[in-house]
């Protein structure tokens, strides 16, 4: 059994190796200088688009953005960089980029959100575990990285690509005032974010002001709306107690 693994002369002489992948259309011996577009393989650019498309086309991290920013005076910009003025302010972020360690991110986030004279509190970050029903990966997010429910929603959408959160009202909270809207959401098959608070109770995300949420959230769980229906009574009570 000949096992010529890798050409010793450094040539990408594909045919001579025993390792054949049997690419669709028969294996070619020379390496194409363009990425082979075999069916079933996602081209790289498509992969990126897939991940970021959740925000809508305008929010796709303009990979040409840098060119646009850098060459403010130049006219020959790629056509794809038309920016929609209604684009959300937060730039779409790629996971793990820039390569800044969580440890460092905490410090900066604390600095940006802290007020003058605030005592350096115990934990400078608010890392909570996030799990989503059906997803094998557990994730951690630092709640202090975000300033609103909308930002958190965007970040979670990126992490869990099949996840879309319900609509948030003007104040960034699920419309708890409107009981029937809430019930609609919980009856749908959309995912609903829930969290465990300091008392160990599971609540629907969005029922308290953002800062209070960050302080009290211990863990996040994204479950299907229909499963979260058990949390509805509590949410309903909160509606009533506020009116």
């Amino acid at each position, binding site marked *: 059994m000949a096992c010529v*693994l*890798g*050409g010793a002369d*450094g040539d*990408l*002489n*594909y045919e001579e*190796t025993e*390792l054949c*992948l049997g690419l*669709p259309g028969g294996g070619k011996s020379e*390496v*194409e*200088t*363009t*990425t*082979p577009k*075999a*069916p*079933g*393989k*996602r*081209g*790289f650019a498509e*992969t*990126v688009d897939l991940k970021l498309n959740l925000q809508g086309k305008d929010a796709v991290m303009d*990979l040409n*953005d*840098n*060119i646009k*920013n*850098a*060459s403010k005076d130049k006219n020959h910009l790629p056509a794809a960089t038309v920016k929609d003025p209604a684009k959300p302010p937060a*730039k779409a*972020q790629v*996971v*793990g*980029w*820039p*390569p*800044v*360690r*969580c*440890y*460092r*991110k905490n*410090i*900066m986030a604390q*600095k940006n959100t802290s007020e003058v004279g605030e005592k*350096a509190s*115990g*934990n*400078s970050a608010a890392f909570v*575990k996030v799990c989503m029903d059906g*997803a*094998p*990966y*557990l*994730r*951690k997010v630092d709640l202090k990285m975000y300033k609103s429910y909308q930002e958190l929603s965007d970040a979670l959408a990126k992490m869990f690509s099949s996840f879309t959160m319900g609509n948030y009202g003007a104040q960034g909270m699920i419309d708890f005032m409107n009981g029937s809207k809430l019930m609609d959401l919980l009856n749908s098959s959309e995912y609903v974010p829930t969290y465990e608070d300091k008392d160990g109770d599971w609540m629907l995300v969005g029922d308290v002001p953002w800062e209070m949420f960050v302080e009290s959230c211990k863990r996040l769980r994204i479950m299907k709306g229909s499963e979260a229906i058990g949390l509805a009574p509590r949410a309903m009570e909160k509606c009533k107690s506020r009116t």
Partner: protein
Amino acid sequence: MLRMASSFPEEVLEHVFSFIYDDKDRNAISMVCKSWYEIERWCRRRIFVGNCYAVSPPMVIRRFPEVRSVELKGKPHFADFNLVPEGWGGYVYPWIAAMATAYPWLEEIRLKRMVVTDEALELIAKSFKNFKVLVLSSCEGFSTDGLAAIAANCRNLKELDLRESEVDDLSGHWLSHFPDSYTSLVSLNISCLGSEVSFSALERLVGRCPNLRTLRLNRAVPLDRLANILCRAPQLVELGTGTYSAELQPDVFSSLAGAFSGCKELRSLSGFWDAVPGYLPAIYPICPSLTSLNLSYATIQSTDLTKLVSQCQSLQRLWVLDYIEDIGLEALAAFCKDLRELRVFPSEPFAQEPNVSLTEQGLVSVSEGCPKLHSVLYFCRQMTNDALATIARNRPNMTRFRLCIIEPRAPDYITLQPLDDGFGAIVEHCKDLQRLSMAGLLTDRVFEHIGNHAKKLEMLSVAFAGDSDLGLHHVLSGCENLRKLEIRDCPFGDKALLVNAAKLETMRSLWMSSCSVSFGACKLLGQKIPRLNVEVMDERGPPGSRPESCPVEKLYIYRTVAGPRFDMPGFVWTMDEDSALRLS
């Protein structure tokens, strides 16, 4: 020749070997002949395992029965950036359990990116009577309860260093578990801990340990307590302050300044959280003798930073935020002629627009002014090929060059060209380059340069670069000394990997995520090369449930003599012969 070797008494050889510390030298010695192998293995005291899954604890113990010091590394480097999901692995407990019986005289454990539990720490505390050094670098999984066990039981502890670990901080009470009779502390680094330790316990501890030379406090230690601590340890060589912010009060300032002046041996400073400029002059008297300064948590602006570094004529290492700006780096270049290492971190990595005036020019200045500069980590928002070429020509002695341009695929901002030639200049001129991280818009050409020139390169990090498999092929076929390769979001697929499969056994590890390597190729690699573990991570479920040509999300390949591991979570699949059959 053989007769001569066997007539040489073992004790003499052992004595000679005892002067050899370097692992590579020790490995070379053990290959000379069987008797040297035997003698050497009995007297090797220190082992370093760069990938904890490359070998198993019983194998290590079987070969080296008298080890005193162990260093292990676990997760791949990209775990630092959240690319390795929770639960991947890197558990130290099996190692501790095995060593508890095999190495009762173990003195030192150093771990990096491993999962350490309280059980593991408790086992360490009770198993090794002469335990001296515990370094947990970027580890996680343990709480302050585990630290309490170490403090309470390790009578001969000299070093406890928790650098950048994620600790479940239940309370600061653990520090009080060091008994009053304990006086052997030499080095303590608790900078990553959040909660307050008892200040009086800390002061008493510091005061009764005359050999203390390194003390890195955590943020919760307020500035007005620092002077007291320093006065009890004037022999300190390395200090990490707590929060460096307080209301400006003359008495606090003068006692702080006095305390610093009293520390004649102080050479390294860090900490400086929330630093206010008003208290910086307290350290001016010791600046001229500082060799290492870590201001990467100090949110002070360029004027104050410039004034500070201009006084540090002996500085060899500087870590700082980009608040230093080009102007501060020019001062650094002018005054700090002994500088060897520079790291500039981004203050606002996620901001769209630059918040400071830090450009490629700052790095060029330092490369011109500092002849000993050989290690660079630089975050910026723009770069040119010219700047890179200038840096390369200025500093052919560069050994570590890590550049990060915040925007992926940013071209040369003046010419709009890829940065291929700039990085090409780096690898061409810097013949001893060991580590390289690239950034910006890069085509296959840069990989061609790397393959042709970077002959001493050991570690390469690549993101959002390249056009085709040819790029990866250049690196794998050209870089003779490559040990670690980590790639994300590049259009590299199967061909280069399969053709260079043999190369993978000469490397420690390869990481590829968001690339185009198919499941079929992974299976093939796993089957054909038994001494590689080919691990596929995929959130979408078993890779066998999708077509073979479907690319995998994440791929981690490493050489091993221990076979596939058995502690993988549900989203990791290993591509060995058996599993390949199971999955198909």
